[in-house]
């Protein structure tokens, strides 16, 4: 198994890419902002902070996943650094998976740091720590990983710009797709029902991974929402990664 070596290399690369410094800056900015926003939102300070923090976490994560995810392989090919790696006794999928695993590790660290920052602010405001936030954060992390997988997938098929657009499109479609299911439920007689459902099941349902609102509002959750959400996300992730590995396996490294 050579992928851990590639994973640790990628981890080093992304860490030295100064991402973490950005994240720390973000955390500091969050704390500063919370104090200002606290003045504006009478009594709802904790809710606002949590909404703000979770959304920012997901958005920042998405951006990092998107841009670094796409550059992950493209950069190796463009700068021809991959030649000295792929020519070693290593399986192609190990390179791809190693890259993915390395970035995942960086993103994990990133998400953990942000959660700690959020908890710190929560402690200042509420004098208690809302551990439920972790449930939403785990799902945010799974969603970020899924976006990385899609970025890798698309960047192995098309130019980086197109791949970024396609990945973003998956992200948006993934959050909108439940509308199709709802529509079919309301209009069971619709002639296009089968088509709508087919599209609904094909597009990753990213709303499965969205517990932000529910956690902040302390709404009741569907049973197993977190567990099944994680399972769903990981299954979809494996699917996309496997497909990407199969493409990469045959790819000419020009």
């Amino acid at each position: 198994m050579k992928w851990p070596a590639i994973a640790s290399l990628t981890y080093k690369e992304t860490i030295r890419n100064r991402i973490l410094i950005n994240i720390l800056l973000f955390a500091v900015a969050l704390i500063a902002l919370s104090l200002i926003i606290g003045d504006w939102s009478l009594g709802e300070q904790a809710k606002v902070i949590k909404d703000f923090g979770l959304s920012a976490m997901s958005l920042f994560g998405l951006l990092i996943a998107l841009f670094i995810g796409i550059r992950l392989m493209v950069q190796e090919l463009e700068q021809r650094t991959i030649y000295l790696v792929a020519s070693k006794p290593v399986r192609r999928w190990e390179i791809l998976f190693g890259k993915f695993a390395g970035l995942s590790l960086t993103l994990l660290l990133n998400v953990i740091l942000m959660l700690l920052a959020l908890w710190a602010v929560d402690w200042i405001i509420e004098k208690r720590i809302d551990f439920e936030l972790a449930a939403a954060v785990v799902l945010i992390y799974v969603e970020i990983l899924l976006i990385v997988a899609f970025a890798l997938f698309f960047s192995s098929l098309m130019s980086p710009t197109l791949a970024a657009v396609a990945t973003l499109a998956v992200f948006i479609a993934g959050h909108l797709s439940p509308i199709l299911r709802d529509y079919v439920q309301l209009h069971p007689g619709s002639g296009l029902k089968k088509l709508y459902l087919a599209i609904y099941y094909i597009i990753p349902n990213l709303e499965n991974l969205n517990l932000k609102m529910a956690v902040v509002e302390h709404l009741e959750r569907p049973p197993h929402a977190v567990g099944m959400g994680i399972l769903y996300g990981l299954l979809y992730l494996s699917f996309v990664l496997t497909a990407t590995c199969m493409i990469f396996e045959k790819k000419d490294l020009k």
Partner: protein
Amino acid sequence: MAGLLRKSCGAALLAALALSIHISQKNLDSGRRIEFINRSAVFLPRGNVLRALSMGYRGIVADWLWIKSVLYFGRRVMDADNPYYLYALYEGDQEKIQAAREHHEASHKHGQAHSAGPHGHVHDHEHIEREKAYLSSLKRPEMDRTVPVPPDSVFLLDENLKHSLFRFKNRGLIDGVYPLLDRVTTVDPHFVHPYIFGGVYAMFETGRLQESLDLLEKGRRHNKDRWEFPFYLGWLYWMYKGEMQKTHEYLVEAVQKRDCPKYVMALMAGLTRNMRQSDFTRLYLEGLLESTSDPHVIESLQGALEQLRAMDSR
């Protein structure tokens, strides 16, 4: 050979994963609590915040909220907790209704434990009961059909007419649709349909007169060239508040707008000539019928017109 084997292994793995994804999605969907999703929609930021957040994409954000509102509304009406929904679904077959209800309760037993809050089903049932009591307490007054009637009793011309036009079915059930519509119309104030939807159809279902009036007034403020807003406002003031003076003012305003249909003029004339209650109502209903394309509204209006005709032939 080895290549082929690897390829088919890959394909088999992909197929297995796709199947598992499908199964897990079905599982997630089946475990979904409708309230859970619905309530999250109501916790959107205020309209003006959304408006700022949507930056250059206000149209799309408004559309999205609008679709959310309709789906929200529809789902509340179709919620298995709503006895009217089950009644309509199984066309009055009591056995099937009972079976569906039992199935529903069994499948949500787990969820019940969570729903002890103020927003659970208990709340909804209470509302329905209260609504039923309210409906039966309404008495049918004797009245002279040629004289303008006092507020609050116009729609009591006839019990059946009342049921057609003002179904109350979901009064209290739908507490989220007006906030949603308010957000839609704040993000995009020139999006006409949501106002009408809230002012007429949602009004028929919920009986939230004040919210409907507010929404239509907001539409009127932002869309000064549209005749629909004064027209519908006039209708609400006539039918549900019995304020002839107000109705007249609105109709005068509507007539002056571009593209205002002829029947509005006829209505105005009828009002000043002290037309018979039922004739005026019919005229208005026909106007409403002509100005809407919403199948639910059309259905309600046609029912009401039928009732009026039956009353006249009596």
